[in-house]
């Protein structure tokens, strides 16, 4: 091994990583603040979006005529580029978090509505049919059969939604909503590479951790409903703890 190889393969990356860690350490309190802001926006959004989406999903499962229009609307929402949507909402809601939260709620509707709808109507059609034949009213069917069976699928939708929310919330920092996007934009503005890289990693980790956590809940719900799951280690441990 020549000296140059050692330098490029080992020393340089280590130096770079040390630099990033250094940035992380010196700005950890700010990063933490931004992470909390980011989580805050995410939480507020999901607290509005989830009941709304589930309600709409349930509505269209009962009132068939509404299926196409509502799913179409929710789908269209998803295609509108985020910055464009923020731009369109600013005249109405000003800058800061309100337009971002409204936009995020709209973006997260499709996965939640769609998954609620599929969960309620398609998960175990034989059970729904049996419920009808045994004499359950619409409401009883929903309450006792359809909703419990739909929970894992709804959770998958929530998971999908959270990932979308975390991602787009980052862009919302541009119009003053706060969150990790602040550091990203500052990093780009001031050509501060360390800032960009470290923030990107933190942001991605946030999304991944939330996705994984919700994935575990999804698997637990599936298991409770009698589906075959390939439990990861963590899920196995949780199952033992719960039962």
């Amino acid at each position, binding site marked *: 091994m020549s000296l140059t190889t050692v330098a490029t393969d080992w020393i340089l990356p280590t130096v770079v990583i040390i630099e990033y860690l250094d940035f992380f350490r010196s700005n950890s309190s700010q990063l933490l603040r931004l992470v909390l802001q980011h989580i805050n926006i995410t939480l507020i959004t999901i607290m509005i979006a989830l009941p709304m989406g589930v309600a709409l999903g349930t509505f269209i499962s009962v009132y068939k005529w509404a299926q196409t229009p509502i799913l179409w609307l929710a789908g269209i929402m998803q295609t509108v580029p985020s910055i464009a949507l923020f731009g369109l909402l600013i005249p109405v809601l000003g800058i800061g978090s309100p337009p971002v939260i409204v936009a995020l709620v709209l973006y997260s509707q499709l996965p939640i509505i769609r998954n609620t709808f599929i969960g309620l109507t398609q998960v175990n059609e034989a059970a729904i049919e*049996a419920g009808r*034949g*045994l004499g*359950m009213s619409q409401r009883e069917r929903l309450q006792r059969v359809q909703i419990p069976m739909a929970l894992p699928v709804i959770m998958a939708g929530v998971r999908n939604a959270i990932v979308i929310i975390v991602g787009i919330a980052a862009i919302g920092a541009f119009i003053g909503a706060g969150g990790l996007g602040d550091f990203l934009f500052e990093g780009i503005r001031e050509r501060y590479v360390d800032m960009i890289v470290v923030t990107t990693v933190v942001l991605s980790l946030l999304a991944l951790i939330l996705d994984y956590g919700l994935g575990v809940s999804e698997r637990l719900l599936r298991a409770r409903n009698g589906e075959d799951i390939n439990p990861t280690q963590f899920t196995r441990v949780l199952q033992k703890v719960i039962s």
Partner: protein
Amino acid sequence: MNTIEFEGVTKVYDDGTVAIEDVSYSVESGTTTVLVGPSGCGKTTTMKLVNRLEDPSEGTVYYEGDDVQELDRIELRRDVGYVIQEIGLFDHMTVAENVATVPELKDWGRERINDRLNELLELMDMPPAEYRDQYPRELSGGQRQRVGIARALAGEPDVMLMDEPFGALDPITRENLQDEFLELQQQIDTTILFVTHSIDEALKMGDKIAIYDVGKVVQYDTPQEILENPTNEFVEDFVGADRGLKRLQVTQVETIMTKPAEASDTGALAADGNGNVARVLSPTDSTQVALSRMIQFDVTRLPVVDGGTVVGEVTKDTVYDIAQTGA
């Protein structure tokens, strides 16, 4: 009285397909009527008219004397047991919770529900202590359908609707459940409507059979009548070319056996086949079993034994007579 009556019932779907046309017959209380025919013949549609999962376009369906259109749909369904091919157990509920569904809907007390639950699980040969708290995913196909049947019986219905209930099971389990269900029928006096596409299952399970051909009922008779006097070529074909042999299936030995002439004959009969008393028939065996044993042991007559005593005999000639269709 007639628990169920169909009067000139026709069902046409929105897209114009005629599911059933001018169907009329009555189902006596406590009997099992099998609706049979090829795919799409209207048998399931007819059955669903009884618990109003479908409504007729023309004609009337009577349930215990009332026009079903005038009864409350939900209440009606709670009084009618319903078993389907896919079983449709609630995966997120235990066996106990599944079976208790209708009693819960009817607001029975905790204790009454529990008693009924235990009673039914015992009936289905699934010890409550062991099976109560299990989940459908832990059960085999046959066990699941047994739970399905228990669930349908839980509310003490007067009528049970069964739509190809054993269709999703393997042949061995299917046969076992058919036999168990026949035994069950003797213990409960529920009126049963049973849909199947298998003529063999129909002949085995039914007190009366309604044969459907593209929406119309072409024959409604006992199994024996259908085998002896099929009304038209469709029924003949549907029953199958081995109609003669099938008649053996549905005739029991005790209906055709003759009394042995003298006591000495008893000894001779018992001695038939090297005094091997295992070569006997019981009165409830079918003549098919009789023929099969005669062939196996290469004899022309067999004694019929009930509780250790010889009560009669069956000869090969008698068996052949039964098998002849007299066409």
